[in-house]
C-alpha cells in the first residue's frame, strides 16, 4: 500500500483537530491544549507509521500505541474515528454516561490498548508489551506518548531504567514537549532541566524534532527503526493548543470550557490554516 505524503498527512491532521473539537461539549471543561499539541504526532502514528487495521483491532502483530498523557486522549479518539474503529458520530458522546469514549483512555474503546490517565503509568505498561513482543517473537512496535510534566513522575524513570536494561529497541517514547503543565510554565513552576540528556544517560537513543513539522516527525519515526539494542525517545517540541489561535501556548486552555463561539472560531482557524 502506498505510503501517504507529508501533504496528505497535514490535511489529515486538520481532520484530527476538527475531530478533537467534535468531542467537546459546549461550556464544559476539556483538555483542549494538550490534545492539540499531540495532534500531528498522533496523525503520523495512525496514518503513516503504525501497522494496524480497524477491521482487525486484535491482530496480535499490530503495533501498539499508549497515550500515557491520558488527558489528551481526544486526539486519539479523533484518529480512531477517522480510521474507522468506531463511527464518527460517537465522538459527540465523549464523556457522557455509558459512552465508549471516556474522559481518559479505557480499553472498552476499540483501538485503545491500556487504561491511562493517572500520569506516569503508561510507559511501564508499554515496556511490558514490548517485552511481550520479544518473548512471543513478534516484531510489533510499542509507541508511548508522554507529557513533559509527566516526566516528573518517578515511575517514568523506573520504566526508563528497565527498558534500557532489557534493551527494548521495539519501544519508542514520544515526549509531547509543549512546556506548559496544568499550573503554567514548566520552567517557572517545576523545571525539568535537560530532558534529552536525562533519557540519554538512562541509556535511550534520543531524537529531537519540531512536533508540528510533519516531515521531521516522519523522519524521526523512520530513523527509530534503525536503532538496535536500546529504546528510543523522540522529544517533540510542540505548542499547547496548536492550531487554535486563542489557545496556542495559553496555559488556561489546559482544561478550560469552550463557548459555542470559541468552538466555531477554532474550526475556522483549523480549516484556514
Amino acid at each position, binding site marked *: 500500500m502506498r505510503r501517504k505524503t507529508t501533504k496528505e498527512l497535514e490535511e489529515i491532521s486538520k481532520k484530527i483537530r476538527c475531530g478533537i473539537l467534535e468531542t467537546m461539549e459546549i461550556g464544559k471543561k476539556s483538555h483542549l491544549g494538550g490534545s492539540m499539541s499531540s495532534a500531528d504526532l498522533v496523525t503520523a502514528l495512525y496514518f503513516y507509521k503504525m501497522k494496524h487495521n480497524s477491521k482487525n483491532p486484535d491482530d496480535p502483530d499490530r503495533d501498539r500505541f499508549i497515550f500515557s498523557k*491520558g488527558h489528551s486522549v481526544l486526539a486519539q479518539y479523533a484518529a480512531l474515528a477517522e480510521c474507522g474503529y468506531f463511527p464518527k458520530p460517537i465522538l459527540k458522546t465523549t*464523556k457522557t454516561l455509558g459512552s465508549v469514549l471516556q*474522559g481518559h483512555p479505557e480499553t472498552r474503546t476499540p483501538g485503545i490498548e491500556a487504561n491511562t*490517565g493517572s500520569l506516569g503509568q503508561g510507559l511501564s505498561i508499554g515496556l511490558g508489551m514490548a517485552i511481550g513482543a520479544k518473548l512471543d517473537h513478534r516484531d510489533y512496535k510499542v509507541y508511548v506518548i508522554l507529557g513533559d*510534566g509527566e516526566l516528573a513522575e518517578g515511575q517514568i524513570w523506573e520504566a526508563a531504567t528497565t527498558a534500557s536494561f532489557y534493551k527494548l529497541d521495539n519501544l519508542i517514547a514520544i515526549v509531547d514537549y509543549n512546556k506548559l503543565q*496544568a499550573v503554567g510554565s514548566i520552567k517557572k513552576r517545576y523545571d525539568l532541566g535537560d530532558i534529552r540528556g536525562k533519557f540519554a544517560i538512562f541509556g535511550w537513543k534520543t531524537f529531537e524534532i519540531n512536533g508540528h513539522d510533519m516531515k521531521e516527525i516522519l523522519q524521526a519515526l523512520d530513523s527509530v527503526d534503525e536503532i538496535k539494542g536500546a529504546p528510543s525517545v523522540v522529544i517533540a517540541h510542540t505548542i499547547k493548543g496548536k492550531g487554535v489561535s486563542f489557545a496556542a501556548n495559553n496555559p488556561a486552555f489546559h482544561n478550560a470550557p469552550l463557548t459555542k463561539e470559541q468552538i466555531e472560531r477554532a474550526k475556522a482557524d483549523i480549516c484556514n490554516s
Partner: protein
Amino acid sequence: MKNNVIATRTAFGEALVEIAKERKDIVVLDADVATSTKTSIFREAFPERFFEMGIAEQNMMGVAAGMASTQKIVPFAVTFAVFATKRVCDQVSISIAYPKLNVKIVGSYGGIPTGKAGATHQAFEDIAIMRAIPNMTVIVPADAEEMKQAVKACVKYDGPVYLRCIRCDTPVVFDENYNFEWNKGVTLREGKDITIVSTGMMTPEALIATNILVDKGLDVRLIHLHTIKPIDKDILLKASIETGHIVTVENHGIIGGLGGAVAEILSESEPALIKRIGIEDTFGESGSLKDLFFKYGLTSENIVKEVKNLIEKKRRKYSC
C-alpha cells in the same frame, strides 16, 4: 437547609488562607493541580509559603514529612484524592503516619465528581485506605461551613489528618452557629424508627430523604459523621439500641468507608441490620453528575427506597 451552593474545595482553599494569616507555620505543597485543588488561592496570598512539587506525589509526601519533622512547619500536602491516597499509600503510612508527623493530607475530587475525567480520577477507596492506616484521622466535611471549621480544627490538632474535598458545588446545610466538634458525630434529627448515617456531600441529600420520610410518618433519626476515624462509637451504639437498624450513605465505595466502619463497630456490641448505600465495588466512569449519582444510587429517592426496604425487613423479621 440553605439555598446557596459552594464547592468544598473552594471553601478549603479560602479557609486555608484565613487560618494561615494567624498561623505562620502553615505551608502548602501541591502536585501541579493547584488550580483544581484551589491551593492556587493560597499561592496567590502567600507565594513564599507555597511549594510546587511537580507531578511527583510520592516525593511530595516525603517532603511534607521532612518539613513537619522540624516541628516548626505544618505542611498541607494537597492533590487529587486518588493520588493523595492510592498512589502514595506506602509513603503516607511510613513517612508520615508511622512517626505521627503533623502533616495534613488533602484529597480533592473525592468520589464521583471529577468533571467527567472518569475512573482514573474518581476516588472510591480513599476513605477506606486512609482509615486503615494507624495514627490517621479521616475527616469528610458535609459543606463549605463545616469545611471552614474543619480546617481550623485540623490545624489545632497535632498529628496526621486526611481531609476530603469535593469538586462540584454542594448545598450549604450548616450556618455560622454550627460548632464543629472534634471526633464527634452530629444528630441532625432525633428519631425512633430507623437511623440514617451519612457523611460528606451525601448529608444534604440524606436531609432531603429524611424530610420526605418524616412527611410519610416515619420517625427517622439522621446522624452526620464528619469524622470517619476515629469514629464516634457512642452515637452509633445509641442509635442501634434505640432505633434498631441503620442505613449508611456515602459518596465512596461500600467497602471499607463509612458503611464498613459502622458495620465494624455495631457487629461487636449492638448488631443492627445495616444497609450500605455507596458505589458497589466498581470503578467509576465518565458521565454527567446527575447521571452518575443516579446510576450509583446516591440520590434522596434511593435513600428513601432503601430506608423503606429496611423497615420492611425489620417488620418481617419481628412479626410472627
